[in-house]
Protein backbone atom coordinates (compact mmCIF):
# COMPACT_ATOMS: atom_id res chain seq x y z
CA UNK A 1 0.00 0.00 0.00
CA UNK A 2 1.96 2.99 -1.15
CA UNK A 3 1.21 6.42 0.11
CA UNK A 4 2.35 8.82 -2.50
CA UNK A 5 2.95 8.64 -6.17
CA UNK A 6 5.20 11.66 -6.08
CA UNK A 7 8.27 11.34 -3.95
CA UNK A 8 8.81 14.67 -2.28
CA UNK A 9 12.38 15.84 -1.93
CA UNK A 10 11.87 16.19 1.76
CA UNK A 11 8.94 14.43 3.29
CA UNK A 12 8.29 17.14 5.79
CA UNK A 13 8.32 20.15 3.56
CA UNK A 14 5.08 22.00 3.71
CA UNK A 15 4.29 21.83 0.02
CA UNK A 16 5.21 18.20 -0.30
CA UNK A 17 1.65 17.05 0.23
CA UNK A 18 -0.32 19.50 -1.84
CA UNK A 19 -2.73 17.37 -3.78
CA UNK A 20 -5.64 19.42 -5.09
CA UNK A 21 -7.76 16.52 -6.27
CA UNK A 22 -7.75 14.84 -2.93
CA UNK A 23 -8.28 18.12 -1.15
CA UNK A 24 -11.33 18.75 -3.27
CA UNK A 25 -12.70 15.29 -2.48
CA UNK A 26 -12.18 15.90 1.20
CA UNK A 27 -14.01 19.19 0.88
CA UNK A 28 -16.91 17.39 -0.79
CA UNK A 29 -16.90 14.85 2.01
CA UNK A 30 -17.14 17.50 4.70
CA UNK A 31 -19.77 19.41 2.76
CA UNK A 32 -21.95 16.34 2.39
CA UNK A 33 -21.57 15.82 6.10
CA UNK A 34 -22.79 19.31 6.88
CA UNK A 35 -25.74 18.91 4.57
CA UNK A 36 -26.65 15.63 6.20
CA UNK A 37 -26.42 17.21 9.62
CA UNK A 38 -28.77 19.96 8.51
CA UNK A 39 -31.05 17.24 7.24
CA UNK A 40 -30.91 15.61 10.66
CA UNK A 41 -32.00 18.84 12.24
CA UNK A 42 -34.92 19.14 9.87
CA UNK A 43 -35.90 15.52 10.42
CA UNK A 44 -35.82 15.96 14.15
CA UNK A 45 -37.86 19.14 13.98
CA UNK A 46 -40.45 17.38 11.86
CA UNK A 47 -40.82 14.64 14.44
CA UNK A 48 -38.10 12.20 13.54
CA UNK A 49 -38.06 8.99 11.54
CA UNK A 50 -35.57 6.23 12.39
CA UNK A 51 -34.58 5.18 8.87
CA UNK A 52 -34.04 8.77 7.72
CA UNK A 53 -32.12 9.47 10.92
CA UNK A 54 -29.91 6.43 10.36
CA UNK A 55 -29.15 7.24 6.75
CA UNK A 56 -28.39 10.88 7.48
CA UNK A 57 -26.25 9.98 10.48
CA UNK A 58 -24.29 7.66 8.21
CA UNK A 59 -23.56 10.47 5.78
CA UNK A 60 -22.93 13.04 8.51
CA UNK A 61 -20.52 10.90 10.50
CA UNK A 62 -19.07 9.12 7.52
CA UNK A 63 -18.37 12.36 5.72
CA UNK A 64 -16.37 13.63 8.67
CA UNK A 65 -14.60 10.30 9.06
CA UNK A 66 -13.65 9.77 5.45
CA UNK A 67 -12.45 13.35 5.19
CA UNK A 68 -10.28 13.17 8.27
CA UNK A 69 -8.83 9.79 7.31
CA UNK A 70 -8.03 10.96 3.79
CA UNK A 71 -6.41 14.05 5.24
CA UNK A 72 -4.35 11.88 7.54
CA UNK A 73 -3.35 9.50 4.79
CA UNK A 74 -2.70 11.67 1.74
CA UNK A 75 -2.05 15.21 2.92
CA UNK A 76 0.38 14.77 5.80
CA UNK A 77 3.78 13.16 6.15
CA UNK A 78 3.60 9.40 6.31
CA UNK A 79 7.20 8.42 6.72
CA UNK A 80 7.93 5.62 7.22
CA UNK A 81 9.80 6.86 10.23
CA UNK A 82 11.90 4.91 12.64
CA UNK A 83 11.96 5.23 16.34
CA UNK A 84 14.08 3.29 18.74
CA UNK A 85 12.49 1.21 21.36
CA UNK A 86 14.01 2.28 24.61
CA UNK A 87 15.05 -0.61 26.73
CA UNK A 88 12.07 -1.28 28.91
CA UNK A 89 13.97 -2.61 31.79
CA UNK A 90 15.87 -0.13 33.90
CA UNK A 91 19.57 -0.65 34.31
CA UNK A 92 21.04 -2.58 37.19
CA UNK A 93 22.04 0.54 39.09
CA UNK A 94 18.43 1.70 39.12
CA UNK A 95 17.25 -1.70 40.21
CA UNK A 96 19.71 -1.81 43.06
CA UNK A 97 18.54 1.58 44.16
CA UNK A 98 14.93 0.36 43.99
CA UNK A 99 15.80 -2.68 46.09
CA UNK A 100 17.49 -0.43 48.59
CA UNK A 101 14.44 1.80 48.88
CA UNK A 102 12.08 -1.15 49.18
CA UNK A 103 14.39 -2.82 51.66
CA UNK A 104 14.33 0.17 53.93
CA UNK A 105 10.78 -0.64 54.84
CA UNK A 106 10.78 -4.38 54.29
CA UNK A 107 13.57 -5.02 56.76
CA UNK A 108 11.52 -3.32 59.44
CA UNK A 109 8.55 -5.46 58.56
CA UNK A 110 10.60 -8.61 58.64
CA UNK A 111 12.00 -7.84 62.06
CA UNK A 112 8.53 -7.49 63.45
CA UNK A 113 7.05 -10.57 61.87
CA UNK A 114 4.62 -11.14 64.70
CA UNK A 115 3.12 -7.68 64.29
CA UNK A 116 3.05 -8.21 60.55
CA UNK A 117 1.05 -11.35 60.96
CA UNK A 118 -1.37 -9.58 63.26
CA UNK A 119 -1.70 -6.82 60.67
CA UNK A 120 -2.44 -9.43 58.05
CA UNK A 121 -5.00 -11.04 60.29
CA UNK A 122 -6.79 -7.79 61.05
CA UNK A 123 -6.89 -6.55 57.45
CA UNK A 124 -7.77 -9.98 56.17
CA UNK A 125 -10.53 -10.41 58.68
CA UNK A 126 -11.97 -7.04 57.86
CA UNK A 127 -11.79 -7.85 54.16
CA UNK A 128 -13.73 -11.02 54.78
CA UNK A 129 -16.36 -9.32 56.90
CA UNK A 130 -17.15 -7.10 53.94
CA UNK A 131 -18.59 -10.11 52.26
CA UNK A 132 -21.44 -10.00 54.73
CA UNK A 133 -23.10 -6.80 53.56
CA UNK A 134 -22.09 -7.22 49.94
CA UNK A 135 -23.27 -10.79 49.62
CA UNK A 136 -25.34 -11.96 52.56
CA UNK A 137 -27.47 -8.84 52.78
CA UNK A 138 -28.53 -9.18 49.16
CA UNK A 139 -31.18 -11.79 49.76
CA UNK A 140 -32.61 -14.57 51.92
CA UNK A 141 -31.06 -18.00 52.24
CA UNK A 142 -32.89 -20.56 50.13
CA UNK A 143 -34.01 -22.67 53.05
CA UNK A 144 -36.70 -25.01 51.81
CA UNK A 145 -37.94 -22.65 49.07
CA UNK A 146 -36.55 -24.65 46.20
CA UNK A 147 -38.37 -27.76 47.39
CA UNK A 148 -41.82 -26.18 47.62
CA UNK A 149 -44.60 -25.00 45.37
CA UNK A 150 -48.06 -23.65 46.23
CA UNK A 151 -49.83 -26.82 45.13
CA UNK A 152 -51.56 -28.38 48.11
CA UNK A 153 -54.00 -31.25 48.44
CA UNK A 154 -57.28 -30.04 46.98
CA UNK A 155 -55.86 -27.02 45.12
CA UNK A 156 -58.22 -26.20 42.28
CA UNK A 157 -56.67 -25.74 38.87
CA UNK A 158 -57.20 -22.27 37.41
CA UNK A 159 -56.10 -20.56 34.21
CA UNK A 160 -54.06 -17.36 34.05
CA UNK A 161 -57.24 -15.30 34.15
CA UNK A 162 -58.46 -17.11 37.27
CA UNK A 163 -61.05 -19.31 35.58
CA UNK A 164 -61.51 -22.69 37.24
CA UNK A 165 -60.81 -25.67 34.98
CA UNK A 166 -63.59 -28.25 34.70
CA UNK A 167 -63.51 -31.72 33.26
CA UNK A 168 -64.94 -30.80 29.87
CA UNK A 169 -62.81 -27.76 29.21
CA UNK A 170 -60.03 -29.45 27.33
CA UNK A 171 -60.54 -31.26 24.06
CA UNK A 172 -58.60 -34.43 23.46
CA UNK A 173 -55.32 -33.13 22.12
CA UNK A 174 -55.71 -29.89 24.00
CA UNK A 175 -53.24 -27.89 26.07
CA UNK A 176 -53.66 -25.40 28.89
CA UNK A 177 -51.39 -23.61 31.34
CA UNK A 178 -52.76 -23.75 34.88
CA UNK A 179 -51.94 -22.57 38.41
CA UNK A 180 -53.14 -23.37 41.93
CA UNK A 181 -56.19 -21.26 42.69
CA UNK A 182 -55.27 -17.92 44.23
CA UNK A 183 -51.69 -18.03 42.97
CA UNK A 184 -52.18 -17.29 39.28
CA UNK A 185 -51.10 -13.69 39.87
CA UNK A 186 -48.47 -14.28 42.51
CA UNK A 187 -44.72 -14.08 41.88
CA UNK A 188 -44.67 -17.81 42.50
CA UNK A 189 -46.60 -18.45 39.30
CA UNK A 190 -43.17 -18.80 37.73
CA UNK A 191 -42.59 -21.88 39.87
CA UNK A 192 -46.16 -23.15 40.22
CA UNK A 193 -46.94 -23.17 36.52
CA UNK A 194 -48.30 -26.48 35.29
CA UNK A 195 -49.04 -27.66 31.77
CA UNK A 196 -52.29 -29.59 31.45
CA UNK A 197 -52.68 -31.88 28.47
CA UNK A 198 -55.32 -34.39 27.46
CA UNK A 199 -53.86 -37.07 25.23
CA UNK A 200 -55.97 -39.90 23.89
CA UNK A 201 -55.84 -42.48 26.66
CA UNK A 202 -55.20 -45.61 24.64
CA UNK A 203 -51.43 -45.62 24.72
CA UNK A 204 -50.70 -44.33 28.18
CA UNK A 205 -47.97 -46.11 30.09
CA UNK A 206 -48.58 -45.17 33.69
CA UNK A 207 -45.75 -45.30 36.14
CA UNK A 208 -46.28 -47.47 39.16
CA UNK A 209 -48.13 -45.57 41.86
CA UNK A 210 -49.52 -43.01 39.47
CA UNK A 211 -52.56 -44.91 38.30
CA UNK A 212 -55.00 -42.39 39.75
CA UNK A 213 -53.05 -39.31 38.79
CA UNK A 214 -54.59 -38.80 35.36
CA UNK A 215 -58.41 -38.82 35.54
CA UNK A 216 -60.28 -38.83 32.24
CA UNK A 217 -57.04 -38.64 30.34
CA UNK A 218 -55.97 -35.36 31.95
CA UNK A 219 -52.25 -35.20 32.69
CA UNK A 220 -50.58 -32.38 34.57
CA UNK A 221 -46.85 -31.79 34.55
CA UNK A 222 -44.71 -29.02 35.94
CA UNK A 223 -44.15 -26.54 33.14
CA UNK A 224 -40.71 -25.62 34.47
CA UNK A 225 -38.14 -27.51 32.42
CA UNK A 226 -35.84 -29.68 34.51
CA UNK A 227 -32.93 -28.51 32.38
CA UNK A 228 -32.70 -24.75 32.76
CA UNK A 229 -36.16 -23.69 33.85
CA UNK A 230 -37.83 -22.45 30.65
CA UNK A 231 -41.60 -22.99 30.31
CA UNK A 232 -42.18 -26.20 28.38
CA UNK A 233 -44.85 -24.81 26.13
CA UNK A 234 -44.73 -26.89 22.97
CA UNK A 235 -47.12 -29.80 22.78
CA UNK A 236 -46.92 -32.11 19.78
CA UNK A 237 -50.28 -33.80 20.15
CA UNK A 238 -49.76 -36.58 17.59
CA UNK A 239 -46.29 -37.66 18.65
CA UNK A 240 -47.41 -36.97 22.25
CA UNK A 241 -44.34 -35.04 23.23
CA UNK A 242 -43.68 -31.86 25.13
CA UNK A 243 -40.79 -29.85 23.68
CA UNK A 244 -38.95 -27.15 25.54
CA UNK A 245 -38.18 -24.25 23.20
CA UNK A 246 -34.95 -23.15 24.83
CA UNK A 247 -32.65 -26.12 24.32
CA UNK A 248 -35.03 -28.63 22.73
CA UNK A 249 -35.46 -31.03 25.59
CA UNK A 250 -38.12 -33.53 24.60
CA UNK A 251 -40.50 -35.18 27.08
CA UNK A 252 -42.67 -38.18 26.25
CA UNK A 253 -46.15 -37.46 27.59
CA UNK A 254 -47.41 -41.02 27.47
CA UNK A 255 -44.73 -42.35 29.84
CA UNK A 256 -45.07 -39.58 32.39
CA UNK A 257 -43.05 -36.86 30.63
CA UNK A 258 -39.89 -38.93 30.50
CA UNK A 259 -36.94 -37.04 29.07
CA UNK A 260 -36.26 -38.78 25.75
CA UNK A 261 -34.08 -36.35 23.83
CA UNK A 262 -32.02 -33.27 24.42
CA UNK A 263 -30.22 -32.10 27.52
CA UNK A 264 -32.96 -32.40 30.17
CA UNK A 265 -31.69 -34.81 32.82
CA UNK A 266 -34.99 -35.70 34.51
CA UNK A 267 -38.64 -36.13 33.57
CA UNK A 268 -41.05 -33.30 34.30
CA UNK A 269 -42.54 -33.80 37.76
CA UNK A 270 -46.16 -34.86 37.53
CA UNK A 271 -48.99 -33.32 39.51
CA UNK A 272 -51.52 -35.88 40.72
CA UNK A 273 -55.06 -34.85 39.76
CA UNK A 274 -58.58 -35.80 40.66
CA UNK A 275 -61.98 -34.52 39.61
CA UNK A 276 -64.23 -33.42 42.45
CA UNK A 277 -67.99 -33.69 42.79
CA UNK A 278 -68.59 -30.53 40.75
CA UNK A 279 -66.43 -31.68 37.88
CA UNK A 280 -63.61 -29.33 38.83
CA UNK A 281 -60.04 -30.51 38.42
CA UNK A 282 -58.05 -30.48 41.62
CA UNK A 283 -54.63 -31.55 42.77
CA UNK A 284 -54.47 -34.60 45.00
CA UNK A 285 -51.35 -33.19 46.62
CA UNK A 286 -48.30 -31.16 45.74
CA UNK A 287 -45.47 -32.50 43.62
CA UNK A 288 -43.52 -35.45 45.00
CA UNK A 289 -40.19 -33.83 44.11
CA UNK A 290 -38.79 -30.33 43.61
CA UNK A 291 -39.74 -28.79 40.28
CA UNK A 292 -37.40 -27.23 37.78
CA UNK A 293 -33.66 -27.45 37.27
CA UNK A 294 -31.39 -29.22 39.70
CA UNK A 295 -29.42 -27.76 42.58
CA UNK A 296 -26.84 -28.99 45.06
CA UNK A 297 -29.17 -29.70 47.96
CA UNK A 298 -31.37 -32.19 46.16
CA UNK A 299 -30.54 -35.78 45.36
CA UNK A 300 -32.14 -37.93 42.70
Amino acid at each position, binding site marked *: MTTSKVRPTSPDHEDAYDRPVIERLIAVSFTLSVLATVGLGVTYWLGGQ*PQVEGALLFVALGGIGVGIVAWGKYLVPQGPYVQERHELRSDDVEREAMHASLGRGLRQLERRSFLLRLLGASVGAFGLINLFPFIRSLGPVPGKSLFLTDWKPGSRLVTA*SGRVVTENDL*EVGGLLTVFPEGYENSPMNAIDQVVLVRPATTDLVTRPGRETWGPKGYLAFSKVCTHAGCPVGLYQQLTQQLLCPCHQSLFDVLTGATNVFGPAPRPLPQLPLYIDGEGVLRAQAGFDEPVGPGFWERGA
Partner: protein
Amino acid sequence: MLVAPSTALAQPATSTPTPSSSAPIVYVNPPKSLIPEGRTLFSEDCETCHGVDAEGSYRAPNLQGLGAATIDFWITTGRMPLADPTVQAAEKPPRLTNQQAEAIAAYVTSLAPGGPGIPSVNLKTANISRGEFLFSEDCAACHTITGVGDALADNVFAPSLYPATPTQVAEAIRTGPGNMPRFGPGTLSNQEVADIVRYVEYLHAPNDRGGAGLGHVGPVTEGFVAIVFALGSLMVAGYWIGGRATR
Protein backbone atom coordinates in the same frame (compact mmCIF):
# COMPACT_ATOMS: atom_id res chain seq x y z
CA MET B 1 -47.10 -9.36 40.20
CA LEU B 2 -46.73 -10.66 36.69
CA VAL B 3 -50.34 -11.07 35.75
CA ALA B 4 -52.84 -11.59 33.02
CA PRO B 5 -54.53 -8.46 31.68
CA SER B 6 -56.81 -6.77 34.14
CA THR B 7 -60.27 -8.16 34.55
CA ALA B 8 -61.63 -5.42 32.35
CA LEU B 9 -60.40 -7.40 29.39
CA ALA B 10 -61.30 -10.85 30.63
CA GLN B 11 -63.74 -12.67 28.43
CA PRO B 12 -66.27 -15.24 29.60
CA ALA B 13 -65.14 -18.80 29.03
CA THR B 14 -68.12 -19.80 26.96
CA SER B 15 -69.79 -17.11 24.94
CA THR B 16 -73.50 -16.87 25.38
CA PRO B 17 -75.46 -16.83 22.12
CA THR B 18 -75.50 -13.36 20.61
CA PRO B 19 -77.21 -11.92 17.56
CA SER B 20 -75.27 -13.19 14.55
CA SER B 21 -74.34 -9.71 13.32
CA SER B 22 -72.03 -9.13 16.30
CA ALA B 23 -70.95 -12.72 16.97
CA PRO B 24 -67.16 -12.99 16.89
CA ILE B 25 -67.22 -16.24 14.95
CA VAL B 26 -70.00 -17.92 13.06
CA TYR B 27 -69.57 -21.55 12.11
CA VAL B 28 -71.31 -22.47 8.90
CA ASN B 29 -71.66 -25.88 7.41
CA PRO B 30 -71.43 -25.86 3.63
CA PRO B 31 -74.80 -26.05 1.81
CA LYS B 32 -76.12 -29.53 1.02
CA SER B 33 -76.34 -28.57 -2.65
CA LEU B 34 -72.60 -29.03 -2.93
CA ILE B 35 -72.68 -32.68 -1.87
CA PRO B 36 -72.86 -34.21 -5.36
CA GLU B 37 -69.89 -32.15 -6.56
CA GLY B 38 -68.14 -33.09 -3.36
CA ARG B 39 -68.73 -36.77 -3.91
CA THR B 40 -67.18 -36.58 -7.37
CA LEU B 41 -64.17 -34.64 -6.21
CA PHE B 42 -63.70 -36.94 -3.21
CA SER B 43 -63.66 -40.04 -5.37
CA GLU B 44 -61.08 -38.46 -7.67
CA ASP B 45 -58.68 -36.96 -5.16
CA CYS B 46 -59.22 -38.39 -1.71
CA GLU B 47 -60.70 -41.87 -1.90
CA THR B 48 -57.53 -43.77 -2.67
CA CYS B 49 -56.04 -42.92 0.67
CA HIS B 50 -58.97 -42.03 2.87
CA GLY B 51 -61.31 -44.80 1.75
CA VAL B 52 -64.66 -44.76 -0.05
CA ASP B 53 -66.55 -43.57 3.00
CA ALA B 54 -63.70 -41.49 4.41
CA GLU B 55 -63.27 -44.16 7.05
CA GLY B 56 -59.52 -44.09 6.66
CA SER B 57 -56.95 -46.76 5.80
CA TYR B 58 -53.40 -47.56 6.75
CA ARG B 59 -52.40 -44.65 4.53
CA ALA B 60 -54.63 -41.93 5.89
CA PRO B 61 -56.77 -41.11 8.92
CA ASN B 62 -60.49 -41.44 9.38
CA LEU B 63 -62.24 -38.22 8.38
CA GLN B 64 -65.66 -39.02 9.72
CA GLY B 65 -66.95 -36.62 12.34
CA LEU B 66 -64.02 -34.22 12.03
CA GLY B 67 -66.17 -31.41 10.71
CA ALA B 68 -66.17 -29.07 7.75
CA ALA B 69 -63.59 -26.77 9.29
CA THR B 70 -61.00 -29.56 9.36
CA ILE B 71 -61.56 -30.55 5.75
CA ASP B 72 -61.59 -26.95 4.59
CA PHE B 73 -58.34 -26.17 6.42
CA TRP B 74 -56.37 -29.02 4.93
CA ILE B 75 -57.52 -28.34 1.38
CA THR B 76 -57.47 -24.54 1.23
CA THR B 77 -53.94 -24.40 2.66
CA GLY B 78 -52.86 -26.78 -0.05
CA ARG B 79 -51.65 -29.38 2.41
CA MET B 80 -54.05 -31.86 0.86
CA PRO B 81 -53.64 -33.59 -1.55
CA LEU B 82 -50.39 -34.70 0.04
CA ALA B 83 -47.27 -34.28 -2.07
CA ASP B 84 -44.95 -36.44 0.01
CA PRO B 85 -46.45 -38.81 2.55
CA THR B 86 -43.15 -39.33 4.32
CA VAL B 87 -42.83 -35.79 5.72
CA GLN B 88 -45.16 -33.40 7.50
CA ALA B 89 -47.70 -31.92 5.12
CA ALA B 90 -46.48 -28.51 4.01
CA GLU B 91 -48.43 -25.48 2.93
CA LYS B 92 -48.38 -25.13 -0.85
CA PRO B 93 -50.55 -23.56 -3.55
CA PRO B 94 -53.91 -25.36 -3.21
CA ARG B 95 -54.89 -27.74 -5.98
CA LEU B 96 -58.57 -27.11 -5.46
CA THR B 97 -60.58 -23.92 -5.31
CA ASN B 98 -62.36 -22.73 -2.20
CA GLN B 99 -65.66 -23.82 -3.67
CA GLN B 100 -64.32 -27.28 -4.36
CA ALA B 101 -62.98 -27.47 -0.80
CA GLU B 102 -66.42 -26.57 0.49
CA ALA B 103 -67.98 -29.22 -1.69
CA ILE B 104 -65.71 -31.95 -0.36
CA ALA B 105 -66.39 -30.72 3.17
CA ALA B 106 -70.10 -30.87 2.49
CA TYR B 107 -69.79 -34.45 1.28
CA VAL B 108 -67.65 -35.67 4.19
CA THR B 109 -69.88 -34.06 6.81
CA SER B 110 -72.84 -35.74 5.17
CA LEU B 111 -71.21 -39.10 5.85
CA ALA B 112 -70.99 -38.48 9.57
CA PRO B 113 -71.95 -35.32 11.43
CA GLY B 114 -69.76 -33.66 14.06
CA GLY B 115 -66.99 -31.12 14.36
CA PRO B 116 -67.11 -27.38 13.81
CA GLY B 117 -68.36 -25.76 10.64
CA ILE B 118 -66.28 -23.42 8.55
CA PRO B 119 -65.66 -20.37 10.72
CA SER B 120 -66.35 -16.86 9.55
CA VAL B 121 -64.44 -14.47 11.76
CA ASN B 122 -65.74 -11.01 12.60
CA LEU B 123 -62.60 -8.95 13.02
CA LYS B 124 -64.36 -5.66 13.66
CA THR B 125 -64.97 -6.43 17.29
CA ALA B 126 -61.70 -8.24 17.82
CA ASN B 127 -59.34 -6.88 20.45
CA ILE B 128 -55.77 -6.85 19.15
CA SER B 129 -54.19 -6.48 22.55
CA ARG B 130 -56.14 -9.39 23.98
CA GLY B 131 -55.08 -11.29 20.91
CA GLU B 132 -51.41 -10.52 21.57
CA PHE B 133 -51.77 -11.69 25.14
CA LEU B 134 -53.34 -14.99 24.13
CA PHE B 135 -51.00 -15.49 21.19
CA SER B 136 -47.96 -15.14 23.40
CA GLU B 137 -49.50 -17.59 25.88
CA ASP B 138 -50.73 -20.33 23.53
CA CYS B 139 -49.14 -19.96 20.11
CA ALA B 140 -45.70 -18.37 20.44
CA ALA B 141 -44.11 -21.45 22.00
CA CYS B 142 -44.32 -23.29 18.65
CA HIS B 143 -44.86 -20.61 16.01
CA THR B 144 -42.47 -18.08 17.64
CA ILE B 145 -43.61 -14.75 18.99
CA THR B 146 -43.43 -13.21 15.51
CA GLY B 147 -45.20 -16.11 13.83
CA VAL B 148 -42.38 -17.11 11.51
CA GLY B 149 -42.51 -20.79 12.50
CA ASP B 150 -39.70 -23.12 13.43
CA ALA B 151 -38.62 -26.77 13.51
CA LEU B 152 -39.97 -28.99 16.27
CA ALA B 153 -38.74 -32.45 17.20
CA ASP B 154 -38.86 -35.59 15.11
CA ASN B 155 -39.32 -33.95 11.74
CA VAL B 156 -42.32 -31.98 12.91
CA PHE B 157 -42.40 -28.25 12.32
CA ALA B 158 -44.66 -25.36 13.18
CA PRO B 159 -45.33 -23.49 9.96
CA SER B 160 -45.02 -19.80 9.34
CA LEU B 161 -48.26 -17.93 9.90
CA TYR B 162 -47.66 -15.39 7.16
CA PRO B 163 -49.77 -17.09 4.45
CA ALA B 164 -52.67 -17.92 6.76
CA THR B 165 -56.08 -16.32 6.17
CA PRO B 166 -58.35 -15.46 9.13
CA THR B 167 -60.53 -18.44 8.39
CA GLN B 168 -57.58 -20.81 8.27
CA VAL B 169 -56.22 -19.49 11.58
CA ALA B 170 -59.56 -20.05 13.26
CA GLU B 171 -59.87 -23.49 11.71
CA ALA B 172 -56.43 -24.49 12.91
CA ILE B 173 -57.08 -23.29 16.45
CA ARG B 174 -60.37 -25.13 16.72
CA THR B 175 -59.37 -28.37 14.98
CA GLY B 176 -55.73 -28.79 15.97
CA PRO B 177 -54.37 -30.08 12.64
CA GLY B 178 -51.51 -32.53 12.76
CA ASN B 179 -49.38 -32.06 15.84
CA MET B 180 -50.98 -28.75 16.74
CA PRO B 181 -52.96 -28.91 19.99
CA ARG B 182 -56.69 -28.47 19.79
CA PHE B 183 -58.21 -25.41 21.47
CA GLY B 184 -61.92 -26.02 21.93
CA PRO B 185 -64.56 -23.64 23.35
CA GLY B 186 -63.65 -24.80 26.85
CA THR B 187 -60.15 -23.43 26.41
CA LEU B 188 -60.69 -20.40 24.18
CA SER B 189 -63.98 -18.65 23.64
CA ASN B 190 -65.04 -17.53 20.17
CA GLN B 191 -64.16 -13.95 21.07
CA GLU B 192 -60.71 -15.03 22.19
CA VAL B 193 -60.17 -16.93 18.94
CA ALA B 194 -61.24 -13.86 16.99
CA ASP B 195 -58.78 -11.79 19.01
CA ILE B 196 -55.96 -14.19 18.20
CA VAL B 197 -56.91 -14.11 14.52
CA ARG B 198 -56.76 -10.32 14.64
CA TYR B 199 -53.26 -10.43 16.10
CA VAL B 200 -52.06 -13.03 13.58
CA GLU B 201 -53.32 -10.75 10.84
CA TYR B 202 -51.28 -7.94 12.39
CA LEU B 203 -48.21 -10.19 12.31
CA HIS B 204 -48.45 -10.35 8.53
CA ALA B 205 -47.25 -6.74 8.49
CA PRO B 206 -45.96 -5.94 11.97
CA ASN B 207 -44.66 -2.60 13.09
CA ASP B 208 -41.09 -2.54 11.79
CA ARG B 209 -40.35 0.93 12.99
CA GLY B 210 -36.70 0.13 13.50
CA GLY B 211 -35.91 -0.66 9.88
CA ALA B 212 -35.35 -3.84 7.90
CA GLY B 213 -37.06 -6.69 9.73
CA LEU B 214 -34.48 -9.39 8.88
CA GLY B 215 -37.27 -11.95 8.67
CA HIS B 216 -38.23 -11.43 12.33
CA VAL B 217 -36.12 -14.40 13.34
CA GLY B 218 -34.34 -12.58 16.12
CA PRO B 219 -30.80 -12.55 17.46
CA VAL B 220 -29.57 -15.17 14.97
CA THR B 221 -29.94 -12.89 11.97
CA GLU B 222 -28.98 -9.82 13.99
CA GLY B 223 -25.68 -11.41 15.01
CA PHE B 224 -25.01 -12.40 11.42
CA VAL B 225 -25.50 -8.81 10.28
CA ALA B 226 -23.35 -7.42 13.10
CA ILE B 227 -20.45 -9.72 12.39
CA VAL B 228 -20.51 -9.99 8.63
CA PHE B 229 -21.75 -6.56 7.59
CA ALA B 230 -20.78 -4.20 10.37
CA LEU B 231 -17.51 -5.71 11.51
CA GLY B 232 -16.73 -6.80 7.96
CA SER B 233 -17.16 -3.33 6.48
CA LEU B 234 -15.19 -1.79 9.33
CA MET B 235 -12.36 -4.23 8.69
CA VAL B 236 -12.43 -3.20 5.04
CA ALA B 237 -12.23 0.43 6.16
CA GLY B 238 -9.33 -0.56 8.39
CA TYR B 239 -7.64 -2.11 5.38
CA TRP B 240 -7.90 1.22 3.56
CA ILE B 241 -6.53 3.12 6.51
CA GLY B 242 -3.86 0.74 7.74
CA GLY B 243 -2.68 -1.00 4.66
CA ARG B 244 -0.68 -4.15 4.31
CA ALA B 245 2.67 -5.19 5.69
CA THR B 246 4.75 -4.72 2.57
CA ARG B 247 6.28 -1.27 2.81
